[in-house]
């Protein structure tokens, strides 16, 4: 029609249309930006997590090299080093009995927690669940006995467990739990408890990071003993006492079990190493914690003595490898030495695919280059260390010879000869516990984690075909939705710790397999708050947490950042263009983050597209600084290396008491500063020591020390308490640092 009314109506309608499109397009942009923020946040958390793992490996490499080539010239030195790197002994049964010794542990009448009697019954397991819900703690006696029985049981199991869907209709597979008891409760609530009708496979990483690793282990072990045919546990890379030192499990045990914690930890070492390595369902679905490599050999894996491998990447504290290391002394010192054929714990990357396989020459060359670079840097550190660590009691013994005074016994010689095969076995285990899938074909060293490799879809395909498998289930990596397929749905990652990085960061999931072996997923998020938040609020919250961590990292590299910024500020204006900011920051932090995407959140005030970098860094420092009077460069170094520092202290504190002697503190700090490449005078160390109350028998409560510098991780509730900590007085620290 052509009437004015219909004309008006048409116009009105057109306006509505236009308005709708406008709103929709505005809203879609809003959502897109949220999505970008979410992705960036995820990247921040991941890259920080992995760079921490790299630190761990570097530290271990340093200690390994130290152990091989540093020959103590005085009894003091020897004691110090040997105490730091105590020998590993694989315990015989009788020794374990003696060690475990739960009999002598009395349960007082005042104890109100659950009592366990053996053999365990289903009622005991449910009683434990109830008790932990009530925040009770299992008495050390029962813990030790439980560990003892668990070990006995695990010893009977093969390396690869074969299970079938015909006995219990469905099998539920859970991934990393990392001490999140709430998630385990949620899984049992949604899926039911383990029972003859309900089989479970728990795919490793039960401990570390979360605060209830002890409870999770107790529950899992209890159900394991009660339903041995239905409950199966695979070892993860965190079932490893060296890793536990850094990531919190050791600390948790010592906090909860002050008297018997040490015993429990030692016992746990002997339980972890007996955990099976993999589970096979219906001969078709292989479940293991990390992944595979192009060298993975299931037949070999089935045969090896898995308990011989107590700890994985980096530190191997066995006598025989130390012997072998000595032969390499002179070669290594001169910068020569075999590259590509190393004993596992020397200065090359552990668990690396150093065997010449179907690898291209390019990747071989880069591996060798990497090994050489690591060797060089470790060598430098060792030289520094030698200069720094002086023992005043033996003034004459300044020279440290390469010849060791330790005599070689016959048994040590024997174990020397078998080291090659044990190296291969060790690598097989590292690969399946530490590897990650990658989209590209091939197999290359996992430099991010420092152990295992990155394996491509071709590697997956090869192993599936070789053993007639349908697909792999693994864990080891946190996934937004709790699970993720890759390699053409041939590899499934399942991750069961929700809110892993922060409340709202990710869901957890478990997968159920019936006789048809078709996976069914159940996702969850174990936190009421997470549910009530809108997407926007959830993302904001997680983002806040990520950026806090990132700002801390930036602060920790202040000196290097200033150098980098100055190189872009040739005219010394005190400012740099914003576009150079991103390049500079990446060159220093090397986190591989999309800095230009993150810039709006990190840089607030700019004038004319340029940043005043000095004041920007000062603002960062104000946030972080807890001790105004400590020289900022020292604080920066502490922050940068805090988990290394903590780990070194914990290694020194071999009885896990939280106390080290003043002398040990002194030596530790020197070792630390040489490793971290800063100069620290004796006065500097003394000032630090004086800032801590160590007037108890010349011991330093290093927990207090770490607390004082905000080095321990705080949960949100602990933060308030931390703010109330007294600031210890320090007159001046006479320490220098470069830059």
């Amino acid at each position, binding site marked *: 029609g052509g009437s004015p009314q219909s004309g008006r109506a048409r116009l009105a309608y057109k306006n509505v249309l236009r308005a709708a499109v406008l709103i929709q397009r505005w809203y879609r942009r809003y959502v897109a930006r949220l999505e970008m923020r979410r992705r960036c946040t995820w990247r921040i958390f991941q890259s920080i997590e992995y760079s921490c793992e790299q630190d761990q490996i570097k530290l271990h490499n340093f200690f390994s090299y130290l152990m091989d080539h540093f020959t103590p010239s005085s009894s003091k030195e020897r004691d110090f080093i040997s105490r730091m790197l105590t020998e590993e002994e694989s315990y015989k049964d009788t020794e374990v009995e003696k060690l475990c010794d739960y009999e002598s542990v009395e349960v007082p009448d005042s104890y109100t927690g659950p009592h366990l009697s053996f053999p365990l019954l289903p009622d005991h397991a449910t009683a434990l669940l109830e008790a932990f819900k009530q925040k009770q703690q299992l008495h050390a006696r029962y813990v030790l006995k439980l560990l003892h029985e668990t070990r006995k049981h695990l010893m009977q199991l093969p390396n690869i467990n074969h299970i079938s869907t015909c006995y219990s209709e469905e099998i539920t597979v859970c991934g990393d739990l990392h001490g999140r008891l709430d998630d385990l409760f949620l899984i049992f609530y949604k899926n039911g408890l383990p029972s003859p009708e309900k089989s479970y496979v728990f795919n490793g990483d039960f401990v570390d990071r979360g605060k209830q690793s002890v409870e999770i282990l107790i529950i899992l072990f209890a159900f394991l003993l009660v339903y041995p045919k239905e409950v199966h546990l695979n070892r993860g890379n965190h079932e490893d006492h060296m890793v536990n030192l850094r990531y919190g499990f050791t600390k948790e045990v010592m906090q909860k079990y002050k008297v018997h914690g040490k015993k429990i930890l030692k016992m746990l070492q002997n339980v972890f190493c007996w955990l099976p390595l993999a589970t096979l369902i219906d001969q078709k679905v292989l479940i293991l914690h990390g992944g595979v490599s192009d060298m993975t050999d299931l037949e070999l894996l089935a045969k090896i003595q898995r308990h011989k491998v107590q700890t994985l990447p980096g530190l191997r504290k066995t006598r025989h490898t130390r012997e072998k290391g000595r032969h390499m002394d002179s070669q290594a010192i001169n910068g020569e030495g075999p590259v590509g054929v190393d004993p596992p714990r020397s200065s090359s990357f552990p668990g690396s695919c150093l065997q010449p396989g179907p690898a291209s020459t390019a990747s071989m060359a880069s591996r060798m280059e990497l090994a050489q670079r690591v060797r060089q840097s470790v060598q430098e550190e060792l030289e520094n260390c030698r200069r720094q660590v002086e023992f005043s009691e033996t003034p004459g013994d300044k020279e440290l010879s390469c010849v060791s005074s330790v005599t070689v016994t016959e048994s040590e010689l024997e174990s020397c000869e078998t080291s090659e095969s044990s190296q291969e076995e060790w690598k097989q285990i590292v690969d399946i516990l530490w590897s990650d899938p990658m*989209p590209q074909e091939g197999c290359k060293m996992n430099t991010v984690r420092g152990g295992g490799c990155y394996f491509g879809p071709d590697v997956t395909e090869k192993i599936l075909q070789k053993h007639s498998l349908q697909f792999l289930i693994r864990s080891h990596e946190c996934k937004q939705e709790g699970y993720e397929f890759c390699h053409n749905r041939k590899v499934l990652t399942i991750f069961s710790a929700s809110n892993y990085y922060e409340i709202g960061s990710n869901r957890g999931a478990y997968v159920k397999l019936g006789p048809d072996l078709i996976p069914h997923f159940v996702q969850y998020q174990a936190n009421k708050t997470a549910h009530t938040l809108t997407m926007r609020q959830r993302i904001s919250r997680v983002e806040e947490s990520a950026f806090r961590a990132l700002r801390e990292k930036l602060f920790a590299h202040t000196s290097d950042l200033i150098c980098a910024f100055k190189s872009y500020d040739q005219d010394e204006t005190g400012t740099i263009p914003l*576009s150079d900011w991103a390049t500079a920051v990446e060159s220093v932090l090397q986190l591989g983050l999309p800095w*230009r995407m993150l810039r709006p959140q990190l840089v607030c005030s700019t004038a004319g597209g340029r940043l005043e970098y000095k004041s920007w860094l000062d603002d960062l420092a104000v946030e972080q600084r807890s001790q105004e009077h400590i020289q900022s460069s020292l604080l920066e170094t502490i922050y940068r290396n805090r988990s290394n520092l903590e780990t070194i202290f914990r290694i020194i504190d071999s009885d896990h008491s939280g106390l080290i002697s003043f002398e040990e503190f002194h030596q530790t700090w020197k070792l630390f500063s040489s490793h971290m490449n800063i100069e620290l005078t004796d006065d500097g160390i003394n000032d630090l020591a004086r800032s801590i109350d160590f007037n108890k028998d010349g011991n330093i409560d290093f927990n207090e020390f770490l607390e004082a510098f905000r080095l321990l991780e705080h949960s949100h509730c602990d933060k308030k308490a931390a703010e109330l900590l007294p600031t210890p007085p320090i007159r001046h620290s006479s320490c220098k640092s470069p830059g």
Partner: protein
Amino acid sequence: GEEEKDGQQEEQLFSIIADIQKKITDAFEVFDHECNKTVDVREIGTIIRSLGCCPSEGDLHDMLAEVEEEEPTGYIRLEKFLPMMTKVLMERRYRPVPEDVLLRAFEVLDANKCGHLTKEELVKYMTEEGEPFTQEEMEEMLSAAVDPETNTVRYRDYITMMVVDES
């Protein structure tokens, strides 16, 4: 003199372009999961919008047509995306919607001029008119836009909240 000034301006222009290109590459790489300079075509909208543009679905369609392969593979290559996106940003196309224009758009939908929309009204407009929302998009918008007490969308407050959140 003149030549010098021209030279300086040219240099500035080059550095602006270089900065834009680095920004685009950074955003692209966030979604480049296989680390091979490609992204899933379904993520292109997110990338373009997070770079500051506010295209409609129709605009997006046009941009995609420029960067897709002759035989669509489901992936977009950085090689093709970069020049297109650089031009878009240099020409300042698809600028974001200013707050006052957004407000007027809501007012157009608010036929009774009462300062708010009912939940049903908003759903009707967003899922039936213009470039309709999916159910997921609708639910997500409602979760933040609807005032639970009155069950209405007080659009003025809603806009203010969203805009603050953005900055």
